[in-house]
């Protein structure tokens, strides 16, 4: 099977700090790839390069085997890569459906410049409700602004939004970091569903339990280098920890 996303020899510097040193990775459809590492290991930097927030200083990004320049978050999304940021990038003052379509509203007529088109509000409401239903996301109300919703519900809205628009890759940056046990559970189930649909999923997390449960493959970064790649299970959980902190197992 061919990788839907491939990063080759990624290099990134911030002034004197070398954040990424010749890091390579491949992501495949229907697979959860865990990206592990201690704070400052380069996980977020790598992900931000793929999602268009940073530009690479060296190396290249291939989508379905073709080298692709990703200049901006918008370009990444156009290329089929959706990212769920740690801050969720939700609009507290908008409803779930409005959040879903923010920046890619369904509107008419198409000959007008995008900003001047008229919103198809009902259609967006209906389609958002459908998607949430498919993903078994339960929300107290679809008319209320997301400011009124719990951490887990907000996380679910953000993940569902990514799921709808992703055509290739969904990147999740610590999706359960701020959640309680029950709400984490729901988000993990949601990620498993995204895998079923056939997206390639890149998951950043500090929770090794989640990695063992969900990830098909794990890549470990340390000080900007890739130091290991393995298939995580109960047996090698200790090896993973050793790789992350840099101690001999």
């Amino acid at each position: 099977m061919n990788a839907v996303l491939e990063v080759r020899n990624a290099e990134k510097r911030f002034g004197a700090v070398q954040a990424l040193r010749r890091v390579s990775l491949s992501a495949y459809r229907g697979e959860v790839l865990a990206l592990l590492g201690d704070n400052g290991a380069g996980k977020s930097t790598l992900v931000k390069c793929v999602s268009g927030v940073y530009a690479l200083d060296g190396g290249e990004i291939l989508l379905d085997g073709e080298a692709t320049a990703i200049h901006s978050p918008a370009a990444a999304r156009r290329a089929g890569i959706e990212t769920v940021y740690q801050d969720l990038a939700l609009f507290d003052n908008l409803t779930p459906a409005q959040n879903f379509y923010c920046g890619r509203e369904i509107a008419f007529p198409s000959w007008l410049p995008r900003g001047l088109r008229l919103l198809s509000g009902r259609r967006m409401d209906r389609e958002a409700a459908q998607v949430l239903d498919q993903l078994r996301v339960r929300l107290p109300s679809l008319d209320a602004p997301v400011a009124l919703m719990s951490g887990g519900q907000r996380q679910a809205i953000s993940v569902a939004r990514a799921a709808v628009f992703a055509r290739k890759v969904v990147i999740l940056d610590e999706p359960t970091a701020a959640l309680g046990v029950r709400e984490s559970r729901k988000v993990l189930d949601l990620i498993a569903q995204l895998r079923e649909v056939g997206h390639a999923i890149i998951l950043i997390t500090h929770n090794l339990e989640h990695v063992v449960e969900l990830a098909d493959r794990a890549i470990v970064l340390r000080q900007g280098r890739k130091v290991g790649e393995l298939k995580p299970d109960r047996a090698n959980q200790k090896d993973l920890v050793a790789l992350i902190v840099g101690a001999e197992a």
Partner: protein
Amino acid sequence: MEEVATNRQGTSAASPKAEKAGASSAVKLALRLLGVGPLLILILLVAVISQLTPYFLEPVNISNILSQTAVIAIVAIGQQLVILTRGIDLSVGANLALATVVGGLVFRVADSSPLVMLAILASATLVGAINGVVYVYGRLPHPFIVTLATLSICRALELAIGHTTMRGMPAWVSAIGGSDTFGVPNSFLVVAAVALTALVLTKAMVWGRWVYAVGGNPEAALEMGIPVKGVLVSTYVISGFCVGVGAVVLAGRTGASSPLYGNLLELDTIASVIIGGASFLGGRGHFGHALIGAVMIGVIRNALNLLSVDVFFQMIAIGLIIVVAVEADVLRSRLEARARSLQTAATQ
């Protein structure tokens, strides 16, 4: 907050979960009340004042209030757009005066209504555009400073080129500001037209959704591919245009132009938006809030005039109402946080 207390007592015998659901709906009710609060206060105000002074509800006086409020209302609708994006436009008063002065100068050369109106609108919109462009492309952290600068520059310019009040405005301009159509002041019709346009722009068009998105979460708006810079500049341009419309109405009503017009209009319009119930923190509110706030200010001034209360007390009254409105805004965000934690508790 009273509902919350009674509700707690009412459900104290029930299960904790039912109690939480009760608390949650009480919080939602409180939020809804807060939403219609300004309108309720306005209605209450009108009821009380009409008891105190029967003249208040005379058609002549109502018409008076409407035409006096018109300028504030029109400019406040533009201000509302800017505040929605977490911004502020301090230049509206000075901009308005400059626009009338430019109109007055054009009138000296040519007694042409279209030409004078065009000059007024163009002058005000240009100042709005300068605000927006300098703020966004000058990468300023906040529009406070640039609009303060244009306030100062506009005031200086209008004194330099206008010196003093100039009498006379062409026929249509006077008609827009001063005449009635079937008993309704034309200026009120202008307010209605501006409000209707604002309604379509903000609620029906994609651009409006972007305005709310930028106000709600600027970083996320950028990540979602919204042209944030363009949206920001456009709100200042529209605010400038609204100032132009307000300038036409004021110049028409007074039949004159003056560098002294629009004094403290920035404060009246900001107060209107906040009193009307929009959030100063951006992302929440609509033109209706600006209208309610503007009418409330108009009503208070008019009533205190009718009751022959000193003008200083008018300013104190409006100041107090602003404090109440801002507190209501704070209370709203607290209630929202409470609703959120109740949600979390309900799903655990």
